[in-house]
Structures are given as C-alpha cells and as structure tokens.
C-alpha cells in the first residue's frame, strides 16, 4: 500500500515537473506549394487568450515577382477570426508581401466585413521576428519586433465564443509562384 502511494506521488511529480520542450520542437514549418493558396500542414485550432504571440521566419522563397497590379497584394501570415465570426467578417492577421525589394509586414483586418490593412514594419529573411496581436474591447493592437504598435478597429462581436486560427495563405488572387516556406513558433 505504502509502496503504491510513493509510486503514485513520484509519477505525479515526474509528469508535472518535466523540462520544457526543446525550442525547435515547437516550430511549425509550413509550405505553400507552387500554384496553391493554402499552406500545409493544415491545423484546426482556436485562440485561447486575448493575445496571440508568435515568432515567424521567412526564407528566400518569400521573394517573388508579379506584374505591378498583383505585387502589392497582401499574403496572410497568421492570425485568428474574431468571436464566432467568419474571417471575412471579423478577423485580425498579419499580412506580408515582397514589395519594393523588401519583405513588408502589414496588419490585416476585417471589421464588420470591411477590410483594412496597414504597414507595420519590414522583416529580414532567415531571421525570426516577433509578432503580437492583442484583442481589446474595440480594437486590435499589432506589435512587430520593436516597431511602434499599430492599432486597428475591431468589429462588433461577442466576447465569449470560438476564435479560430487562420494559418498561412498565399494571395490575394495570385497563387504561390513557387514553393513558399515559413516557420512559425507560437509563444502564447
């Protein structure tokens, strides 16, 4: 009896005092295949806090060239749909585009079905950058590395509900011109 109790307590301690996962084990590597919009692998997850914080790393596959008409179209990096909303109704995401020979990062939102986008900074290839979206009562606050925060309007949504995650997506209208790779590590 005593032996079983000691075993049980030891197992309890063992299972609840493990070391954190290695950094690399929490990195998700996405690829958007040539000619496609959606990234793989596909995940179904929901946001579980009022802040989404993550690191993302692009490599040279983020460089592309389209006709001028399509070049400034934002691709989507990562974000979420707002409370019980479809993502073209209320959502907040980071967007990116290869524009002016640099990798521009944008805040990309839908509020009550109205789309808006705002430049937040420039990312370097092959370097992890920190991204953060905070949900407030009537706005989203986008933070990117040490750049000044960008505030975007939030639509009229509920508070309690499902906030589903929105994973990397290429486009706009144009699909990926070649395989595009991006690595994401969710921090919170």
């Amino acid at each position, binding site marked *: 009896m005593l032996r079983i109790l000691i075993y049980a307590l030891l197992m*309890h301690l063992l299972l609840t005092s493990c070391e954190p996962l290695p950094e690399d084990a929490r990195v998700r590597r996405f690829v958007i295949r040539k000619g496609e919009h959606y990234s793989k692998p596909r995940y179904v997850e929901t946001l579980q806090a009022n802040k989404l914080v993550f690191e993302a790393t692009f490599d040279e596959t983020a460089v592309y060239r389209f006709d001028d008409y399509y070049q400034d179209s934002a691709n989507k990096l990562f974000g979420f749909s707002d409370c019980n909303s479809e993502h073209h109704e209320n959502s907040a995401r980071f967007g990116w585009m290869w524009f002016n020979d640099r990798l521009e990062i944008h805040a990309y939102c839908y509020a009550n079905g109205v789309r808006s986008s705002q430049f937040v900074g420039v990312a370097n290839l092959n370097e992890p950058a920190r991204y953060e979206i905070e949900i407030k009562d009537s706005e989203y606050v986008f933070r990117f590395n040490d750049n000044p925060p960008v505030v975007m309007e939030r639509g009229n949504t509920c508070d*309690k509900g499902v906030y589903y995650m929105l994973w990397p997506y290429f486009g706009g209208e144009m699909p990926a011109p070649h395989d595009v790779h991006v690595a994401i590590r969710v921090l919170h």
Partner: protein
Amino acid sequence: MKAIVTVVSFFLFSLVASGQNMVVQTQSEWTVAGIQHGLSVGYETRSSWGLGVYYQAELERESEDNVVRDDFQGIYLQAPVAKAEKLAFFALLRAGFANNNFVAIAPGLETRVHISSRLGTAFGMGLRMGCASVSGRLFVKMF
C-alpha cells in the same frame, strides 16, 4: 458559463443525495503554455462513466507588462475504455472556456491506478492548444 456550472452542480448534488459516486480530484496539467493546477468535482456511475465540472489555472504567470493567469474551466465527460482490478483506462473529453472568453475543447486519455477502494491516482495525456499535454491527478470517491 455560470449557468452551466450551476445546473451541473445541482445535477451532481441530486445524485449525491441519492447515494451515487461523487469524485473529487486535484489535478496538475503540463501544457505547452505552462503548468496548470486545479480541482474537479464529478459524478461517476457504477460502470465508470463520469460527468463533472473542473477549474484549473496557472498559479502565476508573468508577462512583460502585467501578470496574467491562464485558466481553463468547464465540464468533462469520462468514458471507460478498459478496466482491471486496480487499473482503469478512460477516454476524457473536456470542454469549456479558457481565460473566460475562449471556447476550448481538450480530448485525452487517462490511466487510473486505485490505491484503495476510494483513493487513487491518474495519469493522462491530452491535446491542449494544439500540442500534447500530460497530467497527473489524485482522486477521492466521496460517496
């Protein structure tokens, strides 16, 4: 959420009053975002199906600008998978709200070891925030 907890609580207390099994558990769960500790109270049938409520939270979590405490509360459903004399295996489904507003569903599997007829411990693996989690519990069958 409060209404659900209230209704489930009334349901559980009515069952307790009729002499069924009420199980109280303390639990710790290691998730990708940290360790959460908590408590659950539920009703368990003789065939080991269970239904109850739970609350778990990080004891302390510091962020850059303030202190936030992640929590997860809701109801759980437990289904028996296999049973031996002192060992039992369960499928567990927890559904509720993380940080008050965010719907979260966490499926898992649990191995329960009976230390005595009323006291035992359980070890579980589950899926939280898209990643694997492990948990440990101590449980007492009250009635």
